[in-house]
């Protein structure tokens, strides 16, 4: 029985074994101090009385019922308290979050992303980027499409990549036929890894440094207009 408990303690305290680093010791001491302080307050009935019986209004009626206060504190604990583990571990459990948007530094002008290009039916020698109009890939936006492609490509065997690209192409065509976007008719879809040098005048937007083709799909006959 003891071994699992010790093992669990070791997991909590730090990786490997129970040997604590100074950093761990300081952190534990701080956490311990806070816990002792909280415990010290928690065992005093006078302390709780203050919270449970807020000052009375002029009419002599209490400001709140206990049930109402329980609900208010419960929600506070759920929403704000629920965020604390994520804040400590820097993780995300939507709808709890640490809101990390734009928090990582961007260094240098080199930028690369996975992009989808369509091959035009009218001129198969031409390609157009499907990232230039957010209506082409809806309900995906450019950011989300880039992220999901990155995720699929990082997985061993790239599961479902081909099927996913086909889904994007058939949806593009279905939306076009439905008048949901003004794009031209496409026959193929290509996935590229695109590399840019960012320019503060935007002159390289349409002129990436290079494009590396990763995959290509053709529109199945059943999906053609």
């Amino acid at each position, binding site marked *: 029985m003891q071994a699992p408990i010790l093992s669990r303690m070791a997991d909590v305290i730090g990786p490997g074994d129970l040997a604590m680093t100074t950093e761990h010791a300081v952190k534990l001491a701080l956490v311990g101090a806070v816990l002792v302080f909280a415990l010290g307050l928690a065992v005093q009935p006078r*302390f709780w009385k*203050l*919270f449970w019986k*807020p*000052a009375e*209004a002029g009419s002599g009626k209490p*400001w*709140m*019922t206990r049930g*109402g206060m329980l*609900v*208010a504190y419960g*929600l506070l604990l759920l*929403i*704000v308290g629920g965020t604390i583990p994520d*804040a400590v571990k*820097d993780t*995300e*459990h*939507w*709808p709890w*979050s*640490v*809101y990390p*948007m*734009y*928090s*990582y*530094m*961007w*260094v240098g*002008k080199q*930028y690369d992303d996975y992009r989808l290009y369509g091959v035009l039916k009218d001129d198969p020698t031409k390609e157009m*980027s499907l*990232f*230039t109009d*957010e*209506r082409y890939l*809806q*309900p995906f*936006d*450019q*950011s*989300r499409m880039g992220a*999901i*492609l*990155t*995720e*699929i490509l990082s997985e061993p065997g790239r599961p*479902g990549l081909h*099927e996913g690209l*086909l*889904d994007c192409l058939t*949806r593009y065509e279905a939306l076009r036929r439905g008048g*949901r976007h003004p794009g031209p008719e496409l026959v193929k879809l290509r996935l590229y890894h695109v590399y840019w040098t*960012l320019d*503060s*005048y*935007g002159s390289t*937007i349409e002129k990436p440094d290079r494009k590396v083709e990763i995959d290509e799909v053709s529109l199945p006959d059943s999906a053609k207009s």
Partner: protein
Amino acid sequence: MKTLVEKWNRFWFEPSTADNLGLARILLFGTMAIFYISTPYIFPGWGYHQTFNEWGGVSAVFWRPIWLFRTLHLPQFSVGEITVLDAVWKVSLVFSAIGLFTRFSTAVSFAICVYLFGIQNNFGRTHHLEILLLWAFLIMTFSRCGDGWSVDRLIKTARTGMGPGSEPREVSGEYTWPIRLIWVVMAMIYFAAGCSKLRHSGIAWVTSDSMSYFLMRPPYHVADAEPLLNWGLWMSRHPFASHGMAAMGIGLELSYPLALFDRRLRYLIMASGMMMQTGIALMMGPNFYQMVLCQLLWLPLDRIFYWVQGKFSGKKTYAMIFDGSCGLCKKTIAVVKSLDLLSHVEYLDAVNRWPEILARFPNLDRDRCLEDMHAVDEAGRVRVGFEAYRGLAWVLPLGWVTLPVFYFPGAAAIGTVVYRMVADGRHRGGCALPASVGSESQSAETTSGKS
């Protein structure tokens, strides 16, 4: 310690009336109902962000369930199923806004929004636009936000006859904590975003060229929406501007909790937050319109309303003469008083104040006034029965929305019949007319100046 706890209690539970919370409910659910219902039609270009059903048609190979969906085993519903959910949700938003079945409709708004807001995050990236809204809906669900400014309140008034002026206004901490909790959540969100920047990048987030690159990237189609202007590129070329923007951004995010403690700072931070979110939409793309609207909850909506009320109220332009001995009439008057936000209506009890009424309106007949609702407008025109209510719709600001119904072809004929049935019913239902009034009901008519 005692002082600190007193301050804590005062912050959360200081008694207030139901007005601020009721107005906050209308603002929150009303603006969101308008936003989510109208956007796909007004801005079809990016309206798909506000229609969730298309996620049901996306190939399952893209499905990467987030923690909540995994834990609750929530699947990717079909387009049809999400369409139904979406429709129910929008109806619940409207019901929540007007305060009809408030507890139930706010609960439905919250429950469904967890799925609708969440489903898109199962496809590769988590966006944070709607989190504040989701928590605000949850808080409203558990609050007594339907106690003021709601149809539920009107129904209660119609049932009991107890409305404004007939009972002391209830003050309670129940009307305070929900708004304060939304404030805390808002402050927490911005503060966490600021901390996240410091944690991952440190002060270099401001001192490096990072912001300049952030501003340079949006035209390369990287964000969830295209920037509305190309000012970001201009700013990226001017280090002073981009460093300044970074410093102001992170400074504002970290200072958000101060809004909880100081009223003047609160409004400054609120306005700055709205400008920052708008600036992000203009220069970088992501649009946090929902969060911009939520910022309005920092305002003392009740005091703003009282101020507007004080500006426009006071002059009585419509006198309603009713049977003060009749329960139904008194309940009706209580409802009208609730709707009479600008206090333009004068209520005259024909039983207890007849000499005064006669002195002011000598052409009125007491028996007729006891039998049918009478009203006299500013020009001295007398309206009776259905016409009295139709005239009332012009006087009450909330009545303006009913004008199309009142003036729809045939509405007068149907309205008169319905009025007659209800008026006759009240006599049979216990509101007996005084002995001087004949037992035979007289039809409602409009006298001079009938419109």
